[in-house]
């Protein structure tokens, strides 16, 4: 692999992760289409490199999120069981899934992401108070109010449904090399009724473990191309930090419509690759 290609991979990963950081997303949703469509890399090889990028982005941004007090550690531990099991299922499924299926599934996830981004509003729902729900598992917690810093209590609902959705998110993550925030945040936010900020922070915290469950299997199987993963990982760490800093200065709402269009175009391109003869083996 020559130096120019390494630099281009680094730059593309930096850009994808910075954009992801600005929008509060993991980079995988951009990295895999970029590697397959721009660099012509096999989707299975791209998935392995992207998983390393997803772990790198999650670890790089987890520190500041942990310090905010928004991460529900008990819930992350419990749901980690489901996502790890799902990730292992995904690792085994990728061995039997055709490339057309993988491209088609990715197109579907891109389309769902675009729809979510378009419909997302700055929800300030605080979740139901703990008294509204029994808390046999001890998952209820609180998050600090932005203005006063006072703890705002919330309960966790429909845990079995959340576990089921997280299993699916883990499988999709290992199959497609993405963080699956597209499934995790709705599982936490809509199904389990967590406050939106707690959902985002807890989802990000969990993404690295989901990614590691898949990536460890890929790594021991020798399915991670190290010379591809290296520039992608470095670009992802630096890009995610730049994106997070830019998030403070920029209004993501201004960029949202642009990225909805980008995601929709990528979805069409991935779908076309899935169905066109010779597009995917």
């Amino acid at each position: 692999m020559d130096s120019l290609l390494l630099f281009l991979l680094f730059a593309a990963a930096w850009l994808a992760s910075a954009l992801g950081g600005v929008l509060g997303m993991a980079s995988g949703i951009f990295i895999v289409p970029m590697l397959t469509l721009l660099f012509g890399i096999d989707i299975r090889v791209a998935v392995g490199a992207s998983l390393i990028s997803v772990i790198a982005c999650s670890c790089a941004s987890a520190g500041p999120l942990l310090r905010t007090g928004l991460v529900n550690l008990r819930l992350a531990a419990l749901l980690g069981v489901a996502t790890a099991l799902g990730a292992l299922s995904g690792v085994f499924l990728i061995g039997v899934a055709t490339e057309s299926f993988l491209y088609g599934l990715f197109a579907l996830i891109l389309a769902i992401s675009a729809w979510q981004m378009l419909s997302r509003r700055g929800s300030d729902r605080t979740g139901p108070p703990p008294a509204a729900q029994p808390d046999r598992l001890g998952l209820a917690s609180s998050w600090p109010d932005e203005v006063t810093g006072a703890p705002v209590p919330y309960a966790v609902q429909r845990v079995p449904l959340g576990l089921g959705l997280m299993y699916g998110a883990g499988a999709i993550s290992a199959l497609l090399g993405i963080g699956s925030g597209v499934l995790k945040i709705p599982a936490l936010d809509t199904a389990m009724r967590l406050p939106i900020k707690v959902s985002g922070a807890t989802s990000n915290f969990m993404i690295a473990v989901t990614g590691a469950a898949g990536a460890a299997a890929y790594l021991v199987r020798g399915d991670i191309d190290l010379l591809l993963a290296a520039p992608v990982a470095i670009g992802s760490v630096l890009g995610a930090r730049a994106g997070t800093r830019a998030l403070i200065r920029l209004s993501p709402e201004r960029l949202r419509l642009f990225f909805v269009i980008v995601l929709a175009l990528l979805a069409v391109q991935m779908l076309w690759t899935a169905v066109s003869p010779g597009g995917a083996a």
Partner: protein
Amino acid sequence: VTPERQARQLAVLLEWGTWTATGLIGLGLLLTVAAADGPGLAIIFAGTALFVLLPVLRVIMLGVQFFLKGETRWAAVTGLVLLIIGAGTLLNL
């Protein structure tokens, strides 16, 4: 261990681990570009493996924290996560 201290300890682990792994991969990449048959690829592997291990170390730390707080049920949950990741890795060897 207060929840704030628990979160701070996890944050420090992830931050130091991220920069160490990134540094190793960067060094390995430079060495590989300089000499393809040198130790560069082995150093890239070490950095990549550290990235994969970092979330596992985070789960271990979380389990220890739960155990020290007397929350053995939650320590057992983190143990189950480790068991699943370990089993999956062994099955793919």
